[in-house]
């Protein structure tokens, strides 16, 4: 827990439902939660439970069938596009990059919502992009063509672009999916640093160990059910995980840290 003083909810979902086709059952069903400022929320659940959909709803990319999404006390739909870009950033799971941009040029695109219309980034934006690269652990990669970077390096690059955007709410879609152990650790540290700076984070994640290591709150999603929201200790229990994944799961404590075991 990083915040002891209760602060206002940054992001609120009020009975939000969404599906891709009206004829089918909704993917997200009556999602209700309030994410406090400066906390890390992990959206957890099996494949197809609607985790990435929920992230896209929080981004405003998808519009809910029913319910309301409120960012900093205002409906998300009331934000202008550039304004929304200054509040929210997205770190996608992966991205197809057909042209060989330099890493720093790619990260510079994160500055777009802070620039006046049709302006190009200036020296201060370059500084911000270089700082973001450094914070994401890519300090030596600034001049490297993106097409020559590995899958894990590209994922860190997407993190750097989101950091350059200096958002107040950072949405991360499977941020650790392509990362090796060292880079995973590094990303977790970056997420903690951001939380310490007052940034709120919301990530989907498949790795219970990463969730247990970094998350304050959990939104547990299960196909066909309204998601369950609460502090990580109360939501990620053996019974809940076993039910959601249809698999006997144990939560054990090893050297003072909680770990998830499966058989």
């Amino acid at each position: 827990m990083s915040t002891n003083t209760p602060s206002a909810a940054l992001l609120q979902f009020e009975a939000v439902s969404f599906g891709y086709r009206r004829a089918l059952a909704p993917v997200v069903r009556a999602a209700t939660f309030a994410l406090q400022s400066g906390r890390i929320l992990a959206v957890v659940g099996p494949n197809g439970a609607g985790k990435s959909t929920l992230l896209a709803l929080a981004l405003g990319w998808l519009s809910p069938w029913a319910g309301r999404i409120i960012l900093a006390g205002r409906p998300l739909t009331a934000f202008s596009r550039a304004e929304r870009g200054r509040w929210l950033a997205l770190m996608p799971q992966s991205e197809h990059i057909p042209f060989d941009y330099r890493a720093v040029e790619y990260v510079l695109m994160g500055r777009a919502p802070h620039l006046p219309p049709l302006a190009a980034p200036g020296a201060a934006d370059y500084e911000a992009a270089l700082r973001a690269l450094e914070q994401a652990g890519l300090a030596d990669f600034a001049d490297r063509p993106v097409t020559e970077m590995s899958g894990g390096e590209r994922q860190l690059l997407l993190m750097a672009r989101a950091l350059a955007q200096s958002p107040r709410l950072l949405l991360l879609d499977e941020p650790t999916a392509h990362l090796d152990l060292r880079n995973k650790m590094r990303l977790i540290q970056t997420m903690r640093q951001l939380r310490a700076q007052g940034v709120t984070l919301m990530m989907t994640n498949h790795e219970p160990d990463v969730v247990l290591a970094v998350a304050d709150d959990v939104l547990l999603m299960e196909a066909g059910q309204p998601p369950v929201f609460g502090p990580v200790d109360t939501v990620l229990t053996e019974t809940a995980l076993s039910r959601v994944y249809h698999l006997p799961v144990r939560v054990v404590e090893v050297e003072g840290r909680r770990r998830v075991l499966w058989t």
Partner: protein
Amino acid sequence: MLARNTRRTQGLMALGGALALVFALSLLLGRYPAPGLIDPAQLAQDDLAWRLVFNLRLPRMISAVLLGMTLGAAGMVFQLLFGNPLVEPGFLGVSQGAAFGAAFAIVLLGNAAALIQSSAVLAALAGLGLSYALARRLRFGGWTLRLVLSGIAVSALFSAGVGLLKYLADPLTQLPEITFWLLGGLASITWDKLLSVLPAALIGLVVMALFRWRLNLLALNEQTAFSLGASPSRERLMLIVAAVLPTAVLISISGMVGWVGLIVPHIARRLFQTDARYSLPGAMLLGGLFTLLCDNMARALLAGEIPLGILTALLGALIFLALMTRPQTRFKS
């Protein structure tokens, strides 16, 4: 990083200077009174030389530069927006549409220059509109894939139409006319023709130039562009129109000039790297320079006119191969 930007800006300025120099020399280049450069002093005395330079060469050269700039920039815009280095500005039904419009006018409407031009513009824009409308109705793949597919289908339809018109055309009068139009050339440019396309060409070029950095953003996948505060579908549509409009009006006076829109963006990215803030103006200047040089050869190399489209394809492919097989050609720090 910033040093590289300075280097690239200097590269752009050098290219602009080269274009201005070649433009000035091209005014003097020709086959009157003898093949080669005309003596500037002669212009003051020789009335025919004066009229030749200012009524024939000047509008023609301005058209060549505008055509090259437009094809280069529009090609860059298309390759970035479609995330595909193999597309060129005419592929959304525009080139084949213009060809069909021109052939239609030649065969069925009676061969007046203004008629051919307006018919070509209308059919080119109809090609774009049709591709766009069709893409909205396709039930397959993402938005860019749908546009590419419908562009290919619409181009095939128009190209079948051109084939039919060629078959119907009078083989002695109309067929050669169609064939020369399809080979492309600027021999018949007059001030009137140039002025009729100038507004659309300039608007398109200015819009593309203003959006040059933002193009990078719009080249990203839609959700990412959205997360960066852009409005991807609206801004992309606007840029596609800004690229296609000048392309359509210019090919309506030039005929088919291939390869510039495909190759110049590659060369520009090779020289100025991918960032469209530099590669887009680079593509404009390179396209203008390349087309102007090709047109100079088209009019001055032989006593008869060589179709411009042949030269752009021949030289474009050669330059492209030479550049792509060499490891490094960049303005880098």
